[in-house]
């Protein structure tokens, strides 16, 4: 087990039996399971402090506001930011859309946005919508092992490139991108630098750097509840930006035909916020801090290199992304070769087919053995196109996984 501070027993869902057997949950890249500490924090909030925040003057409302704002400070501290730079959103997707509808709107025809071919759809579609206005979207490529092509990135940084938005860790290849270096290049070019940290903040120590303008991540991918996400933004940038949604909470003063908006971050939090989500996320952050993010990373790296080694022994399995666990996170996309007659027959008729099992079939096969992996395109279709694959299966790890999960996964896969 990872440390004294994290036990599988902390996670009530692992008590559940499926056909009398425990599950092997290997889909934490999609969402993580929740420890009792997080669930308790949410229940305690509703049982002890529930009121609308920032509005009323009675004690209970003060309690709720304090809890909400403390949660913000805890999240800020976790990534080395100040609390007034933390905007609560619904998830990474909403954080990135917020940027598209604020700084994205200020771009002009002929401006360019630079992203990579390994982005999740949520860091593609918010930018793609701007193409209708004559703004160009450029993609940085990657090499065979899934390392981002930094030379390609630098050559695509043009004078017109106003925004550079890059995933810190690929949710398919697992590649950890050199965001410090990319950020520096972006800033030297005068571009705004945005990080999709949905797969990094939950899994490794994250240190804020001067060159990071915006950072987006999701609570549900780091032991927290669904429906709470974070957008970090440099304060002066948040100040300059127009609001995203408008309504209650986010104003100082409203007249019949004009309004004065609140200061950041409240300016971006229109309407009643997700207080239970913020409280749950703060409890998750506390839980992760007790383990220590260095330890989280070490643990996942260990499980990853153990898995990669075992997969290399399975001759019919092909995995994607860097070979070296040092360069990747705990997410492994893979396929399994299919040697069935149909496809061989087609090949003998000179029909070219990739002889891989369909990823859904792999996932169903593993599901029958209570091993839960994701399959399909993982919300990264341009990435799949770059790999010339319709999809992959994907196994991913988190703090509650252990070597026994790796054993169960690999031995089940070996039966295929």
């Amino acid at each position: 087990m990872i440390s004294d501070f994290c036990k599988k027993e902390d996670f009530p869902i692992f008590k559940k039996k499926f056909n009398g057997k425990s599950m092997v949950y290997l889909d934490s890249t999609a969402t993580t399971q929740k420890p009792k500490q997080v669930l308790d924090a949410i229940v305690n909030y509703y049982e002890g402090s529930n009121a609308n925040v920032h509005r009323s003057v009675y004690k209970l409302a003060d309690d709720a506001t304090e809890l909400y704002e403390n949660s913000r400070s805890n999240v800020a501290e976790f990534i080395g930011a100040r609390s007034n730079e933390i905007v609560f959103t619904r998830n990474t997707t909403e954080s990135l859309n917020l940027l598209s509808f604020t700084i994205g709107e200020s771009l002009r025809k002929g401006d360019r946005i630079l992203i990579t071919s390994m982005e999740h759809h949520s860091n593609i579609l918010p930018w793609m919508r701007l193409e209708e206005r004559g703004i160009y979207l450029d993609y940085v490529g990657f090499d065979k092992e899934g390392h981002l092509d930094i030379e390609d990135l630098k050559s695509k940084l043009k004078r017109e490139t106003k925004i550079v938005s890059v995933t810190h860790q690929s949710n398919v290849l697992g590649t950890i991108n050199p965001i410090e270096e990319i950020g520096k290049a972006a800033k030297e070019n005068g571009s705004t630098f945005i990080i999709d940290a949905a797969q990094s903040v939950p899994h490794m120590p994250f240190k804020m750097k001067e060159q990071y303008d915006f950072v987006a991540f999701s609570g549900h991918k780091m032991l927290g509840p669904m429906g709470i996400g974070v957008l970090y933004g440099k304060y002066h940038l948040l100040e300059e930006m127009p609001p995203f949604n408008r309504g209650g909470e986010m104003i100082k003063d409203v007249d019949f035909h004009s309004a004065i908006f609140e200061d950041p971050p409240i300016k971006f939090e229109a309407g009643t916020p997700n207080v239970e989500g913020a409280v749950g996320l703060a409890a998750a952050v506390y839980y992760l801090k007790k383990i220590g993010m260095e330890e989280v990373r070490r643990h996942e790296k260990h499980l990853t290199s153990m898995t990669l080694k075992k997969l290399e022994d399975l001759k019919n399995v092909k995995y994607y992304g860097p070979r070296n666990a040092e360069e990747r996170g705990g997410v492994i996309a893979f396929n399994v070769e299919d040697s069935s007659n149909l496809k061989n027959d087609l090949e003998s008729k000179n029909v070219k087919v990739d002889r891989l099992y369909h990823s859904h079939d792999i996932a169903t096969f593993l599901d029958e053995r209570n091993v839960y992996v994701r399959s399909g395109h993982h919300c990264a279709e341009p990435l799949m196109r770059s790999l010339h694959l319709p999809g992959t299966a994907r196994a991913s790890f988190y703090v509650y996984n252990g070597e026994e999960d790796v054993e169960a996964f690999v031995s089940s896969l070996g039966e295929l």
Partner: protein
Amino acid sequence: MYNDEVMDRYQNPAKNGKMEDFEIKIDEASSTCGDRVVLYIKTDGNGRISNMMWQGEGCILSVVSTDIFCENAIGKEINSLRGQDDLAFVENFPIKISPGRINCVMLPLRAFRRGTKEK
């Protein structure tokens, strides 16, 4: 994987191949799965199917479902095939289908409905 009936059909499909003298050709692709299936249909001129074949690639469930669909279609009326109940269609598949895989099994029926709309 799955059961012998499914795997046998997957490995030796009855209706896989190209048809030259088709009357209707339906191209169905599911980008979410990467599946791509082409249905070739020939009728007897009175709205009854005299032959149906398929080509393409997909997961085992969609391929097998498509092959069964083509085989069972022969001699049936287009409209009655279109009008089949989704639930019954999935239940008639040789193995029990988990909710996450229903779309795979539904692929040929959906394609057929879409491609024969105006007929």
